[in-house]
């Protein structure tokens, strides 16, 4: 008998076996060879031949060393050892964690897709939640801001959010004295401030604040001090407090400005404090102490002075109690001055911030819902991937179970994996949110958030993200985990996981997931489509002017020097002449307003016609070039001549709506219209009757939503234009049509104004089209932008989802496909089979999504332009087509792969 030991040992030399193990193997194998040798000899083989043949057993394709290497290397034991038990929960959790990490390293593609999917969902939710938290929930840095409310006198015929918010000094004092509901009440009034600066004056937005205001807000100054009771004493030195933002923009953040004296509106005032960045009450640049005094005072632009009130609710007093308390007080005051109150009214109180962000609130909550959907899609996607993976890991789980791992242990292991995915997703999501917030803040409509709110990631937001990271694994991880352990554990071992019987069983849950995804995505896309259609419709609405290449600015004329129309026109004549001669300027005009602003309303009468008491029109005063600059089409008669403006003649131009409303079928030219209210506002016109000389097209005059107007959605009102030289009403604008960029004229216009009067400041200088865009389109554009972003992200996720499911089930059935093809199935029919399976799911999802969209249509209807219906067929059809096209694309890749299966390969693969 030959000695085999050396031969065997030589073949094991490449393996690093320990001595005992090695000698055991050598012993066992040499016995095998002995037996073999003996058999061969007994069969008649010669000794040499038998020896060679026996040794040949060891050399089959070099399988020995290779096979032993796989078995004998000391692989780390997997952490599901049957009796890990509850010896140490944390140690075994750590084991689970390590194991999960190893799983992901082994299959990084899966982990990356899952993490990225979750990150998109969590990031988007975090971003929108930050906006909501900073704008709607906690916008104010003030002490106990939830208890700060403002009262509004709401007439019974007014829309829900309308009502007077300005109060006379007398009303303020009465409310402060009589109320039972508030710890304290403070009052703030507009105080435009002309601040002497260089060659002329600049305008700052000042606010007068009643005594106790800073104590009310409870915020200390950043530098210096806040206003104190002593500042309100008669004869106290004049002081003011500056806003951080203004300090940075106008004084470069120079700390030396503190305690310096500045001339504001002709009064020398000492700057005593600079507030912290988030203090921005009234969105003012600076705050001035002033006590409301009894007696009528005129405020800004000749209008009666009004104070805006804030009350801090006493502990335990509800808003409803405060409302009935204040309504009682206001009814008593209405008895004394009925002209200041609607016939039927009550006082409504609302939390601060609501007046600013109210318009954004529905949009933000709609978007939050959309983002919630997105997160849901992401979760479903990941659940799907996990289900698919769980199916391919069935054997592993079964084996673990066979080896004694309890079901609870398996579920926990899977949930730990899910949690790991979610936490990684949340980390990446915070990054996405951080970037997304920057984009959102940039594209937010102006003035739509309180001045005090700073949109960014804060502790609450991060807590929200953390909560998502722990909640989402329960949504996406639990079902696959339960599914994985619930079934007969021996099953997978039995059928060896092949497609014919194995792959289709868990399919139903995954299919349902795809149907849900498609439905949710369709709903989102329909929402985006409707908003887009609505936005396009909004842009189609004619403004009645061509706002491009127009520079506009309000001019702040010092009231003491500009009381009469003559004084005003003496100021404007040289300014208009000078501005018109600037190279690149086509025309310049005065106006009391710019579109789409609402002009003061007056009752009108027409000569020889009884219009009744309710005939009203807006009155705007302008100079000669106004219609030319605005490019408003003249429809009848003529515009004003320079002589008519110069001589302040009583002539008027009306809009088409005026004619169709009051003079339908009659010739308006030559009729006399009486603007009754000009008699008793600021204007002391003894005979405010004007001859109509022309009719122009309708110009948007309903303001902007969120600025107290109805926007383009509201019907244009009858309007009358008169020469600015004929009246002395409030606001003064300068409008200039330029050949090139209008804002390039800014400096020269400013010099021209200061040349005429260095005491006049420019307010809100802007390009008219930019201002209109900000006021009318920024809000809808913002909502649209968000929906498009989130709709697209949803579409990407759904594509990944459909692809994942089909790719997986195709891979599972590769064997079946191989058998089919081996038996003669055409490639085309395999392609069709897979695409049809995907398409069936997509169509089911479309059906569900369509039903949901129609049901939810009502929710978005309020955000839509009226001509766009929530069931708009064009939008629905386009969205469905988009989704189907994307879906087929997602099916195509797995289908093609399936059709290219090599039958031999498929049949051989175990």
């Amino acid at each position, binding site marked *: 008998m030959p000695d085999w030991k050396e031969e065997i040992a030589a073949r094991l030399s490449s393996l690093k076996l320990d001595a005992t193990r090695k000698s055991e193997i050598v012993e066992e*194998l040499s016995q095998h060879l002995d037996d073999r040798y003996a058999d061969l000899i007994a069969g008649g083989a010669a000794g040499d031949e038998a020896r060679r043949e026996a040794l040949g057993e060891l050399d089959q394709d070099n399988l020995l060393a290779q096979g032993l290497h796989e078995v004998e290397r000391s692989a780390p034991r997997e952490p599901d050892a049957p009796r890990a038990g509850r010896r140490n929960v944390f140690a075994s959790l750590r084991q689970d964690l390590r194991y999960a990490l190893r799983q992901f390293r082994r299959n990084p593609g899966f982990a990356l897709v899952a993490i990225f999917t979750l990150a998109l969902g969590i990031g988007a939710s975090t971003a929108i939640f930050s906006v909501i938290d900073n704008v709607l929930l906690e916008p104010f840095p003030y002490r106990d801001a939830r208890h700060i409310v403002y009262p509004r006198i709401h007439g019974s015929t007014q829309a829900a959010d309308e009502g007077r918010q300005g109060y006379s000094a007398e009303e303020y004092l009465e409310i402060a004295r009589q109320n039972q509901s508030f710890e304290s009440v403070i009052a703030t009034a507009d105080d435009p401030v002309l601040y002497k600066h260089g060659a002329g004056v600049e305008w700052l937005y000042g606010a007068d604040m009643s005594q106790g205001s800073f104590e009310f807000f409870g915020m200390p100054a950043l530098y210096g001090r806040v206003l104190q009771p002593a500042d309100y004493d008669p004869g106290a030195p004049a002081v003011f407090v500056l806003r951080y933002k203004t300090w940075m923009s106008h004084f470069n953040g120079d700390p030396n400005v503190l305690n310096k004296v500045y001339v504001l509106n002709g009064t020398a005032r000492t700057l005593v404090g600079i507030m912290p960045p988030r203090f921005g009450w009234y969105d003012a640049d600076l705050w001035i102490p002033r006590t409301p005094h009894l007696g009528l005072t005129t405020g800004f632009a000749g209008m009666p002075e009004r104070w805006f009130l804030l009350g801090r609710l006493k502990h335990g007093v509800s808003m409803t109690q405060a409302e009935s308390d204040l309504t009682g007080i206001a009814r008593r005051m209405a008895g004394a001055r009925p002209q200041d109150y609607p016939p039927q009214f009550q006082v409504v109180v609302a939390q601060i911030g609501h007046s600013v962000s109210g318009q954004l609130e529905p949009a933000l909550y709609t978007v939050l819902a959309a983002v919630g959907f997105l997160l849901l899609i992401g979760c479903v996607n990941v659940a799907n991937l996990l289900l698919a993976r769980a199916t391919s890991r069935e054997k592993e789980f079964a084996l673990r179970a066979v080896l004694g791992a309890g079901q609870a242990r398996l579920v926990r292991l899977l949930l730990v994996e899910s949690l790991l995915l979610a936490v990684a997703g949340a980390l990446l999501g915070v990054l996405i949110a951080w970037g997304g917030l920057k984009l959102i803040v940039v594209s937010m409509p102006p003035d739509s958030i309180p001045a005090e709110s700073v949109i960014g990631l804060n502790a609450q937001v991060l807590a929200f993200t953390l909560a998502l990271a722990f909640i989402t694994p329960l949504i996406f991880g639990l079902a696959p985990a339960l599914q994985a352990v619930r079934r007969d554990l021996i099953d997978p071992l039995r059928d060896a996981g092949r497609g014919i*019987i194995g792959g289709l069983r868990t399919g139903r849950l995954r299919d349902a997931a795809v149907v849900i995804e498609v439905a949710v995505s369709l709903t989102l896309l329909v929402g985006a489509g409707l908003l887009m259609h609505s936005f396009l419709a909004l842009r189609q609405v004619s403004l009645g002017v061509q706002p491009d290449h127009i520079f506009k600015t309000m001019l702040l004329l010092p009231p003491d020097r500009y009381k009469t129309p003559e004084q005003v026109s003496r100021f404007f004549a040289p300014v208009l002449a000078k501005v018109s001669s600037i190279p690149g300027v086509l025309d310049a005009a005065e106006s009391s307003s710019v579109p789409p602003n609402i002009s003061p309303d007056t009752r009108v009468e027409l000569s020889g016609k009884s219009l009744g008491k309710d005939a009203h029109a807006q009155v705007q005063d302008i100079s000669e070039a106004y219609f030319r600059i605005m490019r408003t089409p003249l429809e009848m008669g003529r515009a004003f001549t320079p002589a008519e403006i110069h001589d302040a003649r009583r002539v008027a131009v009306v809009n088409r709506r005026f004619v169709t409303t009051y003079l339908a079928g009659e010739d308006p030219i030559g009729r006399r219209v009486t603007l009754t209210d000009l008699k008793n506002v600021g204007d002391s016109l003894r005979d405010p009757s004007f001859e109509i000389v022309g009719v122009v097209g309708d110009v948007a005059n309903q303001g902007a939503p969120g600025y107290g107007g109805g926007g383009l959605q509201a019907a244009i009102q009858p309007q009358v234009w008169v020469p600015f030289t004929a009246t002395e009403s409030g606001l003064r604008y300068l409008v200039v049509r330029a050949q090139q960029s209008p804002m390039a004229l800014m400096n020269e216009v400013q010099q021209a104004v200061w040349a005429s009067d260095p005491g006049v400041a420019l307010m809100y200088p802007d390009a008219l089209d930019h201002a209109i865009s900000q006021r009318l389109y920024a809000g809808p554009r913002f909502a649209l932008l968000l929906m498009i972003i989130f709709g697209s992200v949803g579409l990407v996720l759904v594509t990944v989802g459909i692809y994942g499911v089909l790719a997986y089930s195709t891979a599972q059935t590769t064997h079946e496909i191989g058998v089919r093809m081996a038996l003669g199935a055409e490639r085309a029919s395999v392609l069709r089979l897979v695409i049809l399976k995907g398409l069936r799911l997509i169509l089911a999802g479309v059906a569900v999504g369509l039903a949901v969209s129609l049901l939810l249509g009502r929710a978005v209807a309020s955000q839509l332009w009226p001509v766009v219906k929530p069931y708009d067929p064009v939008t629905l059809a386009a969205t469905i087509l988009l989704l189907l096209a994307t879906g087929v694309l997602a099916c195509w890749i797995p289908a093609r792969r399936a059709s290219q299966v090599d039958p031999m390969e498929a049949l051989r693969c175990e």
Partner: protein
Amino acid sequence: MTVEVEWKKGSAELLILSLVETRARHGYEISKLIEQRSGGAIRFYAASLYPLLYRLEKRGWIQGRWVEKSGQRRRRYYGLTSPGQKILAAQRRGWQAFVEAVNRITEAEHA
């Protein structure tokens, strides 16, 4: 007819488990039984048999034990463990189901 290597590999576990089901056997015995019962169609050489045995043992499906009989050198006998019995039952059912399925397909195509 010779059976493809790949087919053999997939079913080798099943074969070995079946052979040690009723009583413990040593490696050479297993290889001889496979060769005999398959009429020579399937043969395992030592180079592939022993790694497979060690792998099954490592998984806990079979257990090897050194047995000394009087007058003989000690030999290593492999017997089926109770997890191994479950696996064997499962693999048998799976194999039968697979064969039936293939039959159904091939018959359907010939019908």
